């Protein structure tokens, strides 16, 4: 379980998270929506210990993420993360991209790492691209590679930060389909997204972020189709 407890986070004088609490259970898919600058991406960065927090606590399987004694590299193996920019390693083939972390972080043998990488690449529909260099692929394919690369570490959770925002519209579908597949397989996910249809159909719950706090959280269909908070109503009327 991921448990975010009253987290505050500032960049300089700007307080981005103003007391955020959120529990995500094993197998649950939670989508986070909200305007830009509302702090939703920052929350993911804090959960993955990429950004330190100023106040509060984040627990992942009862381990305090930001405690000094926590081995953050070890912790991140549990938390797969995919970003808006896919950041595939351009000097490696698709297969090497996916096999790198299992090999050097988990110290697997080369054969073992390659086997896992192949499996995860097939999983996201890149089974025919093993020896291709990522720069030769479309953004959608590279983003699926980023997903496979994260999955190859066998994470317990996936953190997805606006993974379709930088894609051409016609490529969004293939990436969302991949995420849908993961959700069906029971992967625990926190998705920061602007895809309201995806949030409604795939997630169990949706949280609406407004100015650093969760203004509304509830069952996915309810929040998207029948929001209770006037702020959520206003936001949704604008993005539709």
């Amino acid at each position, binding site marked *: 379980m991921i448990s975010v407890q009253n987290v505050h986070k500032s960049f300089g004088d700007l307080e981005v998270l103003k007391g955020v609490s959120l529990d995500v259970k094993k197998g649950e898919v939670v989508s986070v929506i909200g305007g830009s600058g509302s702090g939703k991406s920052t929350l993911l960065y804090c959960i993955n210990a990429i950004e330190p927090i100023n106040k509060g606590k984040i627990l992942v399987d009862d381990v305090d993420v930001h405690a000094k004694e926590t081995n953050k590299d*070890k912790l991140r193996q549990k938390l797969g993360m995919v970003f808006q920019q896919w950041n595939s390693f351009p000097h490696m083939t698709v297969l090497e991209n996916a096999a790198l972390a299992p090999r050097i972080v988990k110290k697997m043998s080369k054969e073992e790492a390659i086997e896992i990488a192949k499996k995860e690449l097939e999983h996201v529909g890149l089974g025919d691209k093993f020896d291709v260099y990522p720069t030769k692929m479309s953004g959608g394919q590279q983003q699926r590679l980023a997903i496979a690369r994260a999955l190859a570490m066998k994470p317990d959770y996936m953190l997805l930060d606006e993974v379709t925002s930088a894609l051409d519209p016609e490529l969004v579908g293939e990436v969302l389909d991949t995420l849908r597949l993961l959700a069906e397989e029971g992967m625990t996910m926190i998705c920061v997204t602007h895809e309201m249809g995806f949030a409604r159909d795939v997630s169990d719950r949706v949280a609406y972020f407004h100015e650093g706090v969760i203004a509304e959280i509830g069952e996915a269909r309810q929040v998207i189709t029948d929001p209770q908070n006037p702020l959520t109503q206003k936001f949704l009327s604008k993005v539709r």
Partner: protein
Amino acid sequence: MNSLFTPLSWSDSGLILTGVWNTIIISVVAIVVGTLLGLIVGFLRAESNKAVNILFGSVLDVLRSVPLIIQLILFSTFVGAMGNPLAPFVAGSIVLSLYTMAFMSEVFRSGFESVSPSMQTAARSLGMTKWQTIYHVRLPIGLRAVFPSWLGVSLSVIKDSALVSVIGYMELLRTSEQLISRTQQPLEILIGVGIFYFIISYPLSHYGRYVERKMAI
């Protein structure tokens, strides 16, 4: 009538080849040492805060801005005046290596800085440590990005090595000067020497283009 000067003959080829060899040796030393030191300094500069950078930067600025020929003469005269004169090869290697390092460090710094922070974050998010990220991601991507500049600096080092002749190192240019003063055939000899510099540099430049194509990202 016997002339004071003896024309160029085949027996001079040994001298010329010694010059070629010495040019190659001092160039290789300067490129290897300059690259290794430049890699370290370039990395430190990319990683360091402003204060450290200003300190590094000003030393590098001096090395890059003062003409190499002046650095060579000052260094070898100074060391000589201190009572421990160095062999021309040693003094030349030290100065040429540091001079090369000054340029290489800027090349590598820009290489390290060309790898976006988000790329490094992505690597860290997979559980890689800081050093694993540097070794497997930042270094290979950064080096590929600056390989053409590295090649350019290396090629100019070969040509700059001609200046080490001023402190008495018997490299290609100095051997040619000796031959010219003996034979009074400057045109033939300088054309020949030019061709030799081309022959030394061309394989590097050619091989470099091949490597560049091969690892193009």
